[in-house]
């Protein structure tokens, strides 16, 4: 007869060791600091809805302390912050955004029902961090459209930007097909030399077109 060891003592010991290793794994495993709270599909849905925009003229209420539910965070580096920033804004450089201290701060703000508005020099600079914060569950984070540069240009009369759309991104500023096929004849002569961006005024209803 083929004889197998019948006493499973060794088996029990091995499985116990195995279980202990797993237990050790549980004890040593680092709880990840961040976890995506939104799936990819949810993130795309969120981006489509274009939540998380903060328009420059909304700053008026913040600066005049009428709206005290908003905290401004400057994500540029200290140097740039030192050269000029929106009054009352905090400076957390993009590189320090994940620091425990700052995350704790952001969590406190979130729990207090505050809205956090990130800004960089332009909207693009804060765009990525804003999307990232929303992915990991900080739905109260928004991005300042136009960024600091836009604010600087219009800081004396922010209220007036309500009627402008030049801070809104993702609007085609030209009729691409026409301009690009015009054999290059129209070009520079017709265009006033200084004009940087052709600003077409729009009714406010068109704001939804903005990508943010």
């Amino acid at each position, binding site marked *: *007869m*083929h*004889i*197998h*060891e*019948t*006493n*499973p003592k*060794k*088996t029990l010991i*091995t*499985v116990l060791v*195995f279980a202990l290793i797993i237990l050790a794994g549980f004890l040593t495993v680092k709880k990840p600091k961040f976890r995506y709270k939104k799936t990819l599909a949810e993130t795309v849905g969120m981006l489509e809805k274009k939540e998380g925009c903060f328009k420059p003229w909304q700053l008026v209420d913040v600066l005049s302390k009428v709206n005290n539910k908003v905290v401004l965070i400057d994500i540029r580096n200290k140097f740039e912050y030192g050269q000029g920033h929106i009054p009352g804004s905090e400076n957390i450089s993009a590189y320090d955004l994940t620091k425990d201290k700052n995350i704790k701060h952001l969590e406190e703000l979130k729990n207090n029902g505050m809205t956090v508005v990130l800004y960089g020099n332009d909207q693009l600079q804060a765009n990525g961090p804003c999307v990232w914060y929303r992915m990991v569950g900080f739905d109260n984070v928004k991005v300042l459209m136009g960024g600091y540069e836009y604010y600087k240009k219009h800081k004396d009369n922010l209220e007036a930007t309500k009627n402008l759309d030049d801070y809104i991104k993702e609007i085609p500023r030209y009729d691409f097909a026409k301009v690009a096929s015009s054999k290059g004849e129209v070009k520079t002569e017709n265009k006033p030399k200084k004009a940087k961006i052709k600003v077409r005024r729009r009714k406010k209803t068109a704001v939804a077109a903005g990508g943010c």
Partner: protein
Amino acid sequence: MSEHKNNGSTKYLNPYFGGVLLGLVLIATFFITGRGPGASGAVKSLVVETVDVVAPSHAESNGYFSRFLADGKSPLNSWLVFESMGIFFGGLLSGVIFGRIKKFRVEHNPNITSKTRLIAALVGGMFFGIGTQFGRGCTSGAAMSGTAVFSFGGFLVMVGIFATGYALAWFFRKLWL
């Protein structure tokens, strides 16, 4: 015949103990190499190498063998060949330790002759060889390693082998009972 004499002194491991160890080896293999152990791939390499040595032009023109000759390296220079050598020596080691190594012998059911058993083994091997190529692996490479990492193909092969085995067991009972 010697194998018919009582030789109950050698013992096998408790099967569950063997299973747990095997599972841990599987984990270790994937952990270290990122792939699972197998066996039939080594025989395939051997076949390809043999064909290549005996009739190189034929091996080149064959649609199947030429796949494994593409990079100009000997097909024997592969992971599975070394691993299979390890399996052989591992078996040898276990045989030495548990005293199961004896001179060449045929193990068979007393109701059949050695010759029948040898022919059955040869035929069975042939089927198995063909099957491994369609199935992309054998019981260890596909069924066990595959199922261990949740591969659907591995699971399919495992179910297929065992289901067929049970379905056909009655027809071949003379060989074993």
